[in-house]
């Protein structure tokens, strides 16, 4: 799960469903209209009402009463259809209450107990309260119904058993309906509300996303697409992407690159950030990252969620950044080399000129010593720019550190960095390419020099190399500003294009170190220097095996010959 997906999930899960108990249910109903009753639910209610009316017919066998009650029930259900259960609950409550009043009024009329016009009015108040309570809490509903029943019984003196039966059946129906409303509808509302919130949130994120987000069917026909997808893939077709084949729209440069993934996706597996090159709407090639998550039901893929990120500009910027980093690294190395050459050259020139002025012979031995210094500096540059010996998989850490310092040590002096070394002299050969490791060490030293460039405090670099149980641990401990722990992964792993850069000489930066060491099966870590403010870069490399050692020794033998 990506970071965005995790964040999204946590946002969605933070939406609290409304409780079905207590005033929340009432609020749920009245705040934003009622939930639409399903057709099945309406039919159940209608059927229940008809059954109740039929029962009443046997209790109170006046056909007019039966017809009146039935018509009232049908009217109620019809009203619920027209009102669509989205209006104020008071309207629905009022309608139901009126039906109840009509029901009781008819019963009283046919039994001859309607002796006061105030009676239905009084009952209306009680029932309205019961209906109001219906949307509030099941307990209140039951209470309201019981109050209604006993108030009627009290008002009518419980004189007629038929009236009592009418009231009882009416109360049971009221309680049943209330229960359904308070439980079933509240649950429906919750589901609806949660879905609506999710839909709104997802819609907002989807539409504002810089990624093209699409839902396609298993034949890759677009079902839904966001605005970015339309602009990325529309190609003059306007917003009508629906129904078009996504793979055709993408115009992938190497379709076979995607074919394996198609099979994988249709098999129910997700793919994440597959790099693709495709023709954009401007007919230029774009670098894309393609992700797809199939949605399956009963082991069948019903749709596929697709996200496409255009990284053309990003990779251009990364390339530019990489060139810039290279330029900076080269500047450091050249500065270092310049310093390494200028000192002996100054001595050579001064030796000759002073000898001329003094009328003496130049000190040729001194001049040769200085020429050797120049030679060593040039050799350092040659090592730095030499191609990689891919076959070589063993390296002598001592030698690598020595060579790296040869080219970069003057830079340490220029930057005012005090170098301290604690390097064990009996280290075993490690499993790593000598040249890559050399570049890694130069990169680390250049990096820490850059990090210390504006540091007002003491500038120190301590290089430690010690034998460990199964290899060698090398530590570059420097002062300077400490890295933010949150930035360490990016600092170390860098961006994708940098980490996956082609092998070239003078790759730069800590991501190259990470990549090199990882390829050698080792570990790299960057952390704040706990001893002082600064950075600690730690590398652990395993010991080279016997065959690698032999290969190393034989290659060294041939070099020495």
């Amino acid at each position: 799960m990506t970071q965005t997906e995790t964040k999204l999930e946590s946002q969605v899960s933070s939406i609290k469903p409304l409780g079905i108990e207590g005033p929340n249910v009432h609020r749920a109903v009245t705040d934003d209209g009622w939930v639409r009753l399903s057709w099945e639910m309406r039919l159940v209610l209608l059927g229940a009402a008809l059954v109740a009316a039929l029962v009443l017919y046997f209790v109170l066998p006046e056909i007019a009463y039966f017809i009146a009650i039935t018509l009232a029930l049908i009217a109620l259900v019809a009203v619920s259809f027209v009102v669509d259960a989205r209006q104020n609950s008071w309207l629905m409550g009022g309608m139901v209450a009126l039906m109840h009043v009509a029901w009781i009024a008819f019963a009283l009329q046919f039994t001859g107990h309607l002796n006061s016009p105030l009676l239905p009015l009084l009952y209306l108040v009680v029932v309205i309260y019961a209906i109001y309570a219906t949307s509030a809490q099941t307990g209140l509903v039951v209470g309201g119904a019981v109050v209604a029943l006993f108030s009627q019984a009290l008002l009518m003196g419980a004189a007629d058993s038929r009236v009592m039966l009418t009231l009882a059946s009416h109360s049971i129906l009221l309680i049943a309906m209330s229960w359904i409303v308070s439980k079933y509808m509240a649950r429906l509302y919750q589901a609806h509300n949660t879905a609506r919130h999710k839909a709104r949130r997802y819609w907002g994120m989807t539409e504002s996303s810089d990624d093209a987000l699409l839902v396609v069917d298993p034949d890759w026909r677009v079902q839904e697409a966001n605005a970015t997808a339309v602009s990325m893939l529309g190609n003059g077709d306007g917003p009508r992407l629906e129904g078009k084949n996504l793979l055709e729209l993408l115009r992938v440069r190497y379709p076979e690159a995607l074919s394996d993934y198609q099979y994988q996706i249709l098999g129910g597996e997700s793919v994440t950030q597959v790099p693709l090159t495709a023709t954009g709407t401007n007919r230029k090639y774009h670098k894309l990252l393609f992700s797809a998550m199939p949605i399956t039901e009963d082991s069948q893929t019903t749709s596929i969620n697709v996200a496409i990120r255009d990284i053309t500009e990003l990779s251009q910027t990364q390339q530019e950044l990489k060139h810039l980093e290279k330029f900076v690294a080269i500047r450091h190395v050249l500065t270092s080399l310049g310093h390494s050459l200028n000192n002996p050259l100054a001595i050579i020139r001064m030796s000759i000129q002073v000898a001329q002025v003094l009328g003496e012979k130049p000190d040729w031995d001194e001049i040769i010593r200085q020429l050797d210094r120049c030679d060593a500096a040039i050799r350092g540059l040659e090592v730095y720019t030499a191609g990689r010996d891919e076959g070589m998989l063993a390296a002598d850490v001592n030698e690598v550190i020595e060579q790296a310092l040869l080219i970069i040590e003057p830079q340490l002096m220029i930057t005012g960095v005090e170098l301290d070394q604690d390097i064990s002299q009996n280290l075993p050969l490690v499993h790593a390419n000598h040249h890559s490791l050399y570049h890694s060490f130069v990169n680390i030293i250049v990096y820490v020099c850059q990090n210390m460039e504006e540091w007002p405090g003491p500038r120190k670099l301590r290089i430690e190399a010690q034998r460990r149980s199964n290899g060698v641990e090398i530590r570059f401990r420097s002062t300077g500003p400490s890295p933010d722990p949150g930035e360490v992964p990016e600092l170390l792993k860098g961006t994708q294009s940098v980490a996956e850069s082609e092998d070239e000489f003078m790759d730069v930066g800590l991501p190259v170190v990470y990549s090199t060491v990882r390829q050698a099966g080792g570990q790299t870590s960057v952390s704040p220097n706990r001893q002082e403010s600064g950075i600690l870069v730690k590398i652990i490399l395993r010991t080279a095996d016997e065959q690698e050692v032999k290969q190393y020794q034989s290659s060294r033998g041939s070099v020495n010959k």
Partner: protein
Amino acid sequence: METPNGQRILIVDDEDTLARLMQALLEHLGYNVDRAADGQKALKLGAQRSYSAVICDLLMPTLNGMQLFKIWQNESPELAQRVIFVTGDNLGVRTNRFVELSGQPCLYKPFNIEELTSVLDDVTRVYAGS
């Protein structure tokens, strides 16, 4: 070039060979020359004697030329004004920025003796005039 008239010069450089060569040249030209291999020693000598000019390498161990110059700027501003920097870090941004801000002359290695004597002459002339 005017005769040095026994003016005293301090050479501060960790490159012993180069310092010796400059010393030999300057003594031949009539200067009195002291040498220091790093900034700390130069600091001591600067406190003990008066110098017409200081030829100071910028990059040295312990106390480097930049640090030495800053100390002299605070403690012996007159001596700081007689400093001639010498450096092999011709491409260093930090070095060049420092030299520019200091306002002092700088000899970039490998310099020739004409450049050295010319700059030295300028600095010592100012000292002689002050």
